[in-house]
């Protein structure tokens, strides 16, 4: 699972982007009026847009369907809209994390922060709905849902214990 970064562009809209394996910055700017702008930056010049493509609302949906995936950002938006204050995040596990090699139960994430681990991503395979006995490994990515404050707490737990 690739990590999507979200940046607010005041007065313009929101920018979503991720880095490809080859280091190209790829993303979409959602303009306030509904227009989407797909852009690509070359790996050796990540600051400058090398290619951009403007899509209307309809074209953007068609594009998304052609790619075979519903736009993640939209699904996220729906989820966040249905429960106000809910946040979802992808947290990486450092090799030197105190909980690398221990179980989710050991970390007592839900007890301490109220945050749920809804999936673990290892290499590219997802493990949905892991139980407390699930063992966290270094370089796993935890998909967590909770309050922004709780998620910050989980980050702390994963790095310093």
């Amino acid at each position: 699972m690739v990590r999507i970064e979200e940046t607010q562009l005041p007065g313009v809209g929101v920018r979503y982007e991720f880095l490809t394996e080859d280091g190209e910055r790829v993303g979409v700017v959602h303009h306030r009026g509904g227009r989407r702008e797909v852009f690509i930056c070359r790996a050796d010049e990540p600051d400058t847009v090398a290619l951009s493509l403007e899509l209307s609302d309809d074209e953007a949906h068609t594009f998304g369907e052609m790619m075979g995936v519903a736009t993640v950002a939209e699904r996220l938006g729906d989820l966040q809209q249905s429960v106000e204050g809910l946040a979802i995040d992808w947290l990486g596990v450092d090799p030197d994390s105190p909980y690398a090699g221990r179980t989710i139960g050991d970390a007592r994430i839900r007890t301490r922060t109220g945050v749920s681990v809804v999936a673990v991503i290892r290499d590219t395979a997802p493990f949905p709905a892991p139980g407390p006995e699930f063992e966290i490994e270094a370089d796993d990515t935890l998909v967590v849902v909770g309050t922004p404050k709780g998620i910050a707490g989980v980050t702390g737990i994963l790095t310093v214990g």
Partner: protein
Amino acid sequence: MDHTALLFLELGSVIVVLAVMARVALRFGLSPIPFYLLGGLAFGIGGVIPLVTSEEFINTGAEIGVILLLVMLGLEYSADELLGGMRTSAKAGLLDLALNFTPGYAGGLLLGFGAIGSLFMGGVTYISSSGVVAKLLGDLGWTANRETPVVLSILVFEDLAMAVFLPILGAVAVGGTILAATSSIVAALAAVATILIVASRHGDRLSRMALSSSDEVNLLTVLGITLLVAGAAEQIHVSAAVGAFLVGIGVSGEAAHRARGLLSPLRDLFAAVFFVFFGLSIDPRRLPSVALVILALAAITTATKLASGWWAARDAGIGPRGRRRAGAALVARGEFSIVIAGLGVSAGVSDDLGAIAAGYILVMATTGPILARVVGRSSVP
């Protein structure tokens, strides 16, 4: 000739001239603002074609233009974006303020505008034209560049600085005793703070309540409220511009989005009238005597804007090309510099203020976009 005929002929020819100028500006990818100013200079005192009959309409239209510019500035960013901007871009924003306000203020002092009058000059050189910058970012395809959030956050900070700065200038412009000025500044700043907090907490709900499904109802509601608040603000000696700005900040969410769409054609018309009016009020024969001052200010404040954009982008970890673009994008000064200069002229700061500001904005609104294009072309990897 009969009065009505003359009125329409005059107004018609002014607007047709503006249309031609806007077309020329568009053709060369420039902002139309300097062209409108030139139009005003040509029609005005000592200009080519003096306007007589339509003067009253243009005066009122110009006042409405200022109000629409300010309400749209307020609508541009939500209260949350403004409050967020205050936290995230404080360092870059303050540097931008220090670097770009100072040359104008110092220039004002040197020209003998006095400690208070020079505030207007500082404001003129400080504030970038968010209209021109936003258009540049779109035209040049810079929206998704990595330095763009930095540029936008500086604009947000400037917007916020206007919220503090305008009431002060407004109070100075209206004049009166120091006590009266102080109390209207305090009143205005308290109003700014209250509106920001209320809009940030309950803005969405309030705006939803006022929102109708009819564009007509929405247009009349927003315009009516804006004019009422502007008038009330002027009445309690807190310039009408500040009142309009506050209305813009207060409206948020879906209502703000709709209002922007509805008001922008009106803004385009009346703001153009305002730019012409500002040009009209200036005697072009004064320009040669202040040309050196204008060029010096333009050179210095081009450099200082480049520096503040460059520094802010570097601070955000952007590479050299992005830093140059961030600086170049911010160079253009425009509509809000004219608003500030207009307040100064009506406060009677100095006869030279209007001429210097007009010449300065002519230079900056033209060179800003050109500079950005040049930098853009040279920064293609």
